[in-house]
């Protein structure tokens, strides 16, 4: 089968490899019909995540058709069109019993902080991802959700990570009616966090980024205020001026370890790897939020350490909340929102690319070329039915 193949930092190619097989009685094999490149895939692509092995296939946002099921699978049948949450989870461990599916203790041998994630290095369990024609889906009885017939596949694929992560970012912010919410990052997660902040009753939503085309998009799509940090001398002063000197009630980090905006953070975090990526946005969040406010973090950071002003967080009495999204928990409500027309996720898709062109798709997304916001990869067998355009 054709699959994305990681060859080293900034190098990927489409290459044939063996089709996956049932390895556990509760596995399923899914024929992928769409997969996305996620912003967090770029951390792998840039070589930022430890234990990312050559030959790995990325892709934790995908939907597809069940082709084969293991002998113990009862909740799925061959032919079901399913969306597959990016978390691989067992449903029975201590953490799954508390609905912390992203922290499942039974699906990732190589690390304890996070559970298994499709195509996200051996630090997240060593599973191949969905940027391929076929993918092994473990714990098929608990992870996948059959796509409702009235749900557009483009909406469904965004329910596997991007939309639930943005929604959970807002949820963790504990937004109260009328709150001012500042969201750092106008990528897909930040866009959905902005949209979700309104659902939770925010009074003001301000999105911060430096890419004008993304700020223009989010301004229209999420009806929010925008700030280009390249035009701001000091982020904390700017946000405080916008909020009567108090600071925002909630700050949300939707950027993670590859933030730009602070030369020292970029040098030590992104280039010298002296810390787990640049903590620029964490710094901004802590210093822009009001005393007693909430900082919500869904941006991805590496496993070692970061330089953040934790003393300020203590002195301001902040609440810091963070986690990978527990996708399955959010699906019923988010499907309701889509069906009710409150959110139209597929609008953020800017590029549809054949899987064969995966290297160009990664470069396009990584370098923010051609006003790219979200890229969908179409495998060969699906390409004839959908409009995939070489980049």
């Amino acid at each position, binding site marked *: 089968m054709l699959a994305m193949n990681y060859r080293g930092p900034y190098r990927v190619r489409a290459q044939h490899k063996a089709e996956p097989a049932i390895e556990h009685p509760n596995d399923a094999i899914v024929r992928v019909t769409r997969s996305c490149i996620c912003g967090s895939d770029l951390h792998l692509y840039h070589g930022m995540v430890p234990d990312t*092995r050559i030959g790995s296939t990325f892709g934790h946002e995908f939907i597809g058709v069940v082709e084969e099921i293991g002998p113990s699978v009862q909740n799925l049948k061959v032919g079901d069109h399913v969306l597959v949450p990016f978390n691989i989870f067992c449903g029975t461990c201590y953490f799954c019993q508390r609905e912390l599916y992203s922290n499942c203790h039974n699906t990732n*041998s190589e*690390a304890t902080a996070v559970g298994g994630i499709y195509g996200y290095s051996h630090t997240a369990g060593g599973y191949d991802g969905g940027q391929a024609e076929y993918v092994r889906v473990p714990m098929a009885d608990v992870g996948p959700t059959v796509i409702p017939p009235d749900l557009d596949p483009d909406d469904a694929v965004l329910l596997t990570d991007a939309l639930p992560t943005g929604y959970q970012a807002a949820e963790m912010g504990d937004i109260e009616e009328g709150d001012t919410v500042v969201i750092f990052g106008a990528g897909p997660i930040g866009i959905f966090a902005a949209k979700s902040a309104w*659902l939770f009753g925010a009074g003001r939503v301000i999105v911060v980024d430096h890419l004008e085309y993304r700020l223009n998009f989010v301004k229209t799509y999420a009806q929010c205020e925008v700030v280009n940090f390249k035009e701001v001398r000091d982020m904390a002063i700017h946000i405080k001026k916008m909020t009567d000197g108090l600071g925002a009630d909630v700050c949300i980090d939707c950027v993670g370890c590859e933030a730009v905006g602070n030369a020292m953070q970029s040098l030590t975090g992104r280039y010298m790897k002296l810390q787990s990526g640049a903590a620029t946005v964490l710094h901004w969040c802590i210093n822009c939020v009001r005393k007693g406010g909430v900082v919500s973090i869904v941006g991805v950071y590496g496993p070692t350490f970061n330089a953040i002003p934790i003393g300020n967080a203590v002195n301001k009495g902040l609440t810091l909340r963070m986690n990978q999204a527990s996708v399955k928990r959010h699906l019923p409500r988010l499907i309701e929102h889509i069906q009710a027309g409150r959110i139209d996720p597929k609008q953020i898709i800017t590029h549809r690319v054949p899987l064969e062109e995966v*290297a160009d798709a990664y*470069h396009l997304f990584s370098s923010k070329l051609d006003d790219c916001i979200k890229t969908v990869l179409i495998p060969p067998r699906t390409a004839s039915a959908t409009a995939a355009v070489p980049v």
Partner: protein
Amino acid sequence: MDQAVQSKQAGHDRSRYAHIDGWGADLDRRNCPAYPMERTPPRLENPPTHAPEQQPVKVKVFHSTERSDITPIFGSTVPPSGISGRLRAWAFRYSENNVFHWLLLLLADRVNMMEGIGGDLRRGHMPNLFREMGGRAELKHNPVGFARKVAIASVVVGVGCYFFSRRSRRID
């Protein structure tokens, strides 16, 4: 009352948000199916009744020293091999709490990259770095940037060749 507090309270008027699709739909989050954030038992349809059985171990799989053994479910893709595999084995002697564990894994990744190029050449496949690094997309969507990168690379290679040739002449 503090002016900032007055200003915040004055801004609270629901009619201001009438133009925003879905504003406040999840304001009372107790009505949301996902409330609260953590709940036991989990809200799964047909939840599993027992822990998953052990997946057969057919390839080398490392496990964190913070665990007693391999997890019931694991990924079996790209098992460790070569020098990078030995570095990874070394890394897994240290806990995730030890930064040495992570630095060794990053080192193994870089070694693995070189092993990948070696493996390609052994199979008679010359890696197409231009294509693998998305050169076609760069050329199409950022031709000026592409030209700049080519110019910088040419200067670097040219300067390198110049100094190398001078050094070779001195040795002769």
